[in-house]
């Protein structure tokens, strides 16, 4: 066999944590994978292996910790000063709503039958506003968008208010209370405040602090392919279409190009068909191009999923129990494929229960138990690690045999 070249570090996590409510599924996991390396992730059921995968390819956001992949940081770090900035923004936002007071009274007044409801409406409006501020402190990615919309509404209201302040002045309410002199400066203040908030929401620092929503698609484009524990295919599409979907992130044809059948789009389509066919041949499905994915045998489905991941031109593959449900000859085939891929320089991180499979294949092994990394090292070292044997109590015999 040709000697494999292990390259530079491709993926590195530092103290990665994922919590679901009270449950910590991944506890301060720090690991690294180098280009061209085959690394196995083992551990008893419920050890958090799949959750770790979800964090790595950003299907879910990790609670804390950092992930670096191909030189890019996937998780933004929030510093205390940034947090404070956001907190101040939220306070401005909440108090800005107080300026709505005269506006709401002015609008409601002509239709209001008596004061009580106007006051109630105001109080509920204010409460609503303060309620909306809460997610700001939690720094949810979506809250920035939501707040932007509300601030825009503020700005529009301020404009209306400014333009119609004459009309409001006629409302008897303003004759009774000295609010009228505040109308025009209030409108200007509200408008400026909204404007400043809008600008601040778009500061790169604020944007980063809010973080991005989980974006597995972008991570895939960076070069992290993935397969799932139970093949997640597009079952009603053909095998070829499934793999062509893998080419999606490496192609650019847009709406107009497609509709008008521009030569670029057409060439790209042919190209992706050719590449997809090649991927299918590689995994041994060259004869089943046009069969429906749902109609394939289970082993074929697993291989189709691998082909789909390969079509994305990954630098690294996350394989979640790839041989589960395969017969011995199929799994031997798969080992061969994985070796070829790693020779091509693709890093492979693999979750597996089958010890024999791991010991034959992996360069290094990480052992996860209850979300914690309890051991790492060469397969031989892992086999004799006491902690691992304890964690695997029931499976210890099998481990010894392997």
């Amino acid at each position, binding site marked *: 066999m040709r000697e494999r070249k292990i390259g530079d570090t491709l993926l590195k996590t530092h103290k990665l944590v994922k919590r679901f409510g009270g449950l910590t599924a991944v506890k301060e996991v720090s690991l690294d994978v180098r280009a061209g390396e085959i690394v196995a992730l083992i551990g008893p059921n419920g050890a958090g292996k799949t959750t770790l995968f979800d964090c790595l390819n950003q299907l879910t956001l990790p609670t804390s910790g950092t992930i670096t992949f191909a030189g890019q940081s996937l998780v933004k770090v929030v510093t205390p000063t940034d947090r404070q900035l956001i907190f101040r923004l939220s306070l401005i936002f909440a108090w800005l709503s107080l300026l709505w007071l005269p506006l709401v009274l002015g609008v409601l007044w002509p239709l209001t039958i008596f004061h009580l409801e106007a006051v109630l409406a105001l109080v509920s409006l204010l409460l609503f506003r303060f309620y909306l501020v809460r997610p700001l402190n939690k720094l949810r990615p979506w809250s920035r968008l939501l707040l932007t919309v509300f601030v825009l509404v503020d700005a529009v209201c301020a404009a209306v208010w400014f333009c119609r302040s004459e009309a409001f002045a006629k409302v008897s309410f303003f004759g009774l209370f000295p609010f009228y002199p505040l109308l025009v400066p209030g409108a200007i203040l509200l408008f400026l405040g909204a404007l400043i908030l809008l600008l601040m929401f778009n500061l790169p620092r604020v944007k980063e602090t809010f973080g991005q929503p989980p974006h597995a*698609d972008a991570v895939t484009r960076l070069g992290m392919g993935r397969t799932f524990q139970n093949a997640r295919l597009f079952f009603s599409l053909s095998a070829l279409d499934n793999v062509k*979907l893998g080419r999606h992130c490496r192609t650019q044809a847009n709406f107009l190009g497609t509709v008008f059948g521009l030569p670029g789009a057409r060439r790209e*389509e042919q190209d*992706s068909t050719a590449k997809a066919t090649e991927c299918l041949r590689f995994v041994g499905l060259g004869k089943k191009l046009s069969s429906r994915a749902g109609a394939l045998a289970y082993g074929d489905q697993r291989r189709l999923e691998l082909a789909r991941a390969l079509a994305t031109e990954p630098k690294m593959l996350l394989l979640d129990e790839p041989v589960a449900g395969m017969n011995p000859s199929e799994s031997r085939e798969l080992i061969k494929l994985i070796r070829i891929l790693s020779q091509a320089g693709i890093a492979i991180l693999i979750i597996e229960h089958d010890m024999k499979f791991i010991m034959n294949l992996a360069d290094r092994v990480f052992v996860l138990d209850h979300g914690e990394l309890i051991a790492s090292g060469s397969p031989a070292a892992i086999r004799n690690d006491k902690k691992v044997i304890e964690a695997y109590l029931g499976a210890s015999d099998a481990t010894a045999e392997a």
Partner: protein
Amino acid sequence: MHLDDRLFHDKKLYLPLLIVVLILPWLPLGQAGPYVIRIATLTLLYMVLAQGLNVVPGFTGLLDLGYVGFFGIGAYTAALLTIHYHWSLWLILPLAALNGALWGVLRGAPSLRLTDDYFAIVTFGFSELIILVIKNELWLTRGPMGIPGIARPELFGVVLDQPWQTYYLILFLLLLVLWVVVRIRNSRLGRAWFAIREDEIAAECVGINVARYKIIAFALSAAIGALAGAFYARWFRFVHPDMFKFWESILILCLIVLGGMGSISGALLGALLLIPLTEVLRIILPSEFSSARYLLFGLLIVVMMRWRPAGLLPVERE
């Protein structure tokens, strides 16, 4: 090869069809002639609408119960631009489509994370709100008085006032829409939509920006609806909020359920079967019961879902 793919490629399929629709206005139908052309025009209009709706529930798998909202937006856009500015239909059509797309994006953007039933409810609520606004903002839409006296469509300065002329006009629009959806269906874009329909998470993991492709689908679907609306306003020469009731959304949904969700030829067949039937029933039934023909649609939906959920011309991408 599936019927949808043959639609534009198989001469044996599309030539006879095209000939039939082209000579339809010239058939010697005597007294019934104008009426037949009217029904045919309406059928083609609903074909356009069904193609537009099909993009969202059929291609991306999200149930849209408020499609008529975009139809209404398109119709009112065209009506207002025509009566206030007397613009040409050929300027108004793209503008109405753009306006529809804009609202489609505005509706879709906040509801990207919602799944089936909640998405359906939001679309429904949204279209009801649109109709409510149309009904109540008298300064803009004249509300329940409707907007009468909208100019007829015209082409190179010639006013299209003959039934066969409007018939050819909607036929042209239908072919345009069909051309777009058939192309898209077999492209990178269409595949991405199908992937989202099948499994959103897997789609994300193969590098599809789910939010973006959903937004494109909403925009396209809404634009087609608005395009149909713009034609409708200029053809009918009158718009009224009651033309865009929830019923219409259901009727269009019924068309694609009958033909098969996601099937382009199915949506055409659905409209071809149901719209003439509706019109005939409208004549046969006494006026107080005329809206009871919707009973049939309700029943049809239930029966189709029970025994033929994939529709008459199911999509099988073999």
